[in-house]
């Protein structure tokens, strides 16, 4: 597996770490960023293979990060999968309009299923 990086933007470290663990089992490198501002700085310099994005973040929220990617960086190609506990239709719709590749409610999914969902974007 190539050294592609998955950027995990998640303010809850226990969750970010759990994701990192299952991905590392599959030899996927990860970068964890816990707030929106840092995420933007990082993204302005780096292009990860995949962004796993929580929506509820301290300060700049997930939507703003998403808008930054799509509108300011004008990067339509960068795969973004939302991993959040926000399950409202409105949020889901908004995210889809901003061109996310997946929307996963954390409590709905077992940890072990995540790599299967991510790998298509890591090849």
């Amino acid at each position, binding site marked *: 597996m190539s050294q592609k990086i998955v950027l995990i933007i998640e303010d809850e470290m226990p969750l970010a770490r*759990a994701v990192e663990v299952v991905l590392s089992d599959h030899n996927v490198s990860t970068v964890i960023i816990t707030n929106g501002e840092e995420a933007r700085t990082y993204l302005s310099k780096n292009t990860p293979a995949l962004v796993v994005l929580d929506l509820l973040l301290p300060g700049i929220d997930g939507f703003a990060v998403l808008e930054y990617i799509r509108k300011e960086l004008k990067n339509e190609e960068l795969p973004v999968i939302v991993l959040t506990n926000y399950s409202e239709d409105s949020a889901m719709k908004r995210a889809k309009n901003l061109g996310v590749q997946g929307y996963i409610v954390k409590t709905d999914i*077992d940890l072990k299923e995540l790599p299967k969902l991510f790998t298509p974007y890591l090849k």
Partner: protein
Amino acid sequence: MMLGKSLFGIYVIPFVLLVALTGLGVGYVAYNQVSDLSKEVTLKEFQKNNETVTSQLQIFLEAPKHVAEIQAQHLQSYSSPEEILQSATPKVMFSDLLRHQHVVSMQYADENNFSFALSKNVFNVPYSYAEIGIHPKMSTNAAVYSVDGAFNIDRTKPIVESSAYDVRVRPWYQTGIKSAVPLWTDVYAWIPETGEVGVDYVYPIGTAGKNYAVLTASLTLNSIKTFLNELLYVSPLSQIYILDADGDVVTGTDIVSVPTPNGEEFKQVHASESQSKYLKQVYADVKARGGLLDSLKTSYRETDIDGETYYYSITRYAEDSTLEWYVVSLLRANVVISKIQSTNQTMVFLSLGTILIAVVLAFLISQSIIRPVTHLNSAVRAFEREGVLALDEKVVDGPSEINLLANSFVTMADKIRGQIKTLEKQEDILTIENEKLSKTIESIGEAVIVLDKDLNVILMNKVAEKMTGNPMAFSKGKHFDDVCILEKPLSHSTRMPAFISRALETGAIQIEDDVYNVVSKRGAKIPAICLASPIFQEEGEVHGVVVVIRDITEEQQINRTKGDIVSIASHQLRTPLSIVKWNSELLLSNRTGDRITQRERTYIEEIANAISQMIELVDNLLRASQFELGVFRIKREELNVKEVIIQVVEFCKERCTRGNITMSLKIAKNAQKYTGDRELFAMIVQNLITNASKYSKDGGKVTISASMTDKHFVFEVKDEGIGIPEEEKKKLFTKLYRGTEARKVNPNGSGLGLYIVKLITEKVHGYIKVQSEVGVGSTFTVLLPKRGMK
């Protein structure tokens, strides 16, 4: 008053015009007809008059004859002039002369040149007596004396006395004495001094062949002219002339006769040149026609003289071959025409006068009708304003028909007044009722708009005024659309929602599930829920609709807050739940360095199960709140019913089934596809199947079926489980309710599953029912609209 539509305009003006036009038309026709007619009449009259003229003239001309005849017979008995003079004869002759107006002179003459003459209007005295000739008893040879009416001769002073008086016996005296028959003399000047010109009728006296004297009766031409002029009264348009046998003028109505200077016999009468000319022409014309015919007496002839047309009638007057005169009546065509013209002018004036009178009369008559009607009209106007019908005398004293009409109006006005009073009473009652109603409507907290059957606003309360921004004064009579805009939040349609007209059409109360925005005049949007209720007339006909709009701003605010709380709470709950879930999963995943004992594994598994239940509870709470608030959208897609059910069943098998439960699936052919929201449909299916499996007995059978009826897609889940007691069925679908038996079987149930199913089915216009028997099992049936979820 519009002239065109008034009685005056409709009847009077045309009537007057008609009268005028008819008059003019008749006048025109009459003018032409009468012109011809009057010409004919004038000429006929002319002809008839001529007959009269001729016969009158004949009588006149024969007068000397009669006078002479009578006197001559008288004289026959005398043998000498002396005898005559001594007798009363001159006196008798005088009285005879007086009787004959136009005979101016009578004369007796014997062969010895003795004569006496009686004259009227000669020598400038009324009556005169002349003795002429040498007579032994006479002092002079000639003297003329004046005589009074009783024939007293005034010998004191002769009018003319001359011994030198040239006494001549006229040659025709001699002729007369020799003649066997009386004869007329030619025209001559018998008193040259006075210019008297005339003719004599000479009557021989004596026995046949031995006459010794003559008696003459004289006519002057002036007296003939005077008579002719008198005859003009009979034939006023013509001129009458007398011509002699040579065609020369003897005299005529407009002839000035002039005596010859020397007083010798003559027959020249001075006619003017033109008179002579046309009379000659008439004479020539008569001659050219072969002389005078009797027929000429009764007809007229037409001749052109110098381009002028004349009508003439000519009569021959001949006496004993000694006198041959022609009496000519002459009528100038111009005179006829001018007579006709003057007649016509008179007629035109008369016609115009008649027309004018007719017009004035028509106008007056019409005014006599219109004026009372106009007054009646103003009276009725006043009645409209003041409710009192006061008729002035112009109406009452009008024509009887108008009077009748006026009386009818008075009667009618009385009746109307009576009815108005009744109505006013009823109105009072209605006002009270209306006030009650208004107060009731005003006191309602919701906006109430009452519409008629054309959906125009009849009434609206203060709340409605405030909500729409349109006051009642503006809204009354306007269409609902113009007063209140109800907009569906997502459609932005400003057309009146169908439920209002549906209430009118169906006569059934329409309660809208959808939330509308009332868009006020200023553009503010107020969320509201609405209902439309038909208003029935006594006959049961729908004649209006009441729209009730409830402002749900506050409710929505509360709900939103509630929703926000739920949603945030759910999210905040989920985060730690997911941490526990995923980390217990990590612990159980047996990775290097994380070795755990079997006992520890069991503990962690219990934590994971509890967390799963917790997660389910949170999910359900979140969904329930979403449905309650209506903040979700129903998607429409064609669903493969079997596929959805199998997915759910697979999911259930993993998570919630227990023991040996058999599941069977029956899907009717016509129920394989259904249009609706996949997630909502899956949620129904999942909750029902989960419940069925949860509450089934060990080895129980769950039958899942889908079918289609006329109106519904029917999804049914039948179990052979614990069953539901009758008294609990009603509460079964309420939020957080849990059956007593169910609690025993599954103490951790949330009490939200069936509540959510009920919320979903009702939201998509379906319903849910349950059949159950304790200890036997339950059947849950969901009926969804055949046309799909909406």
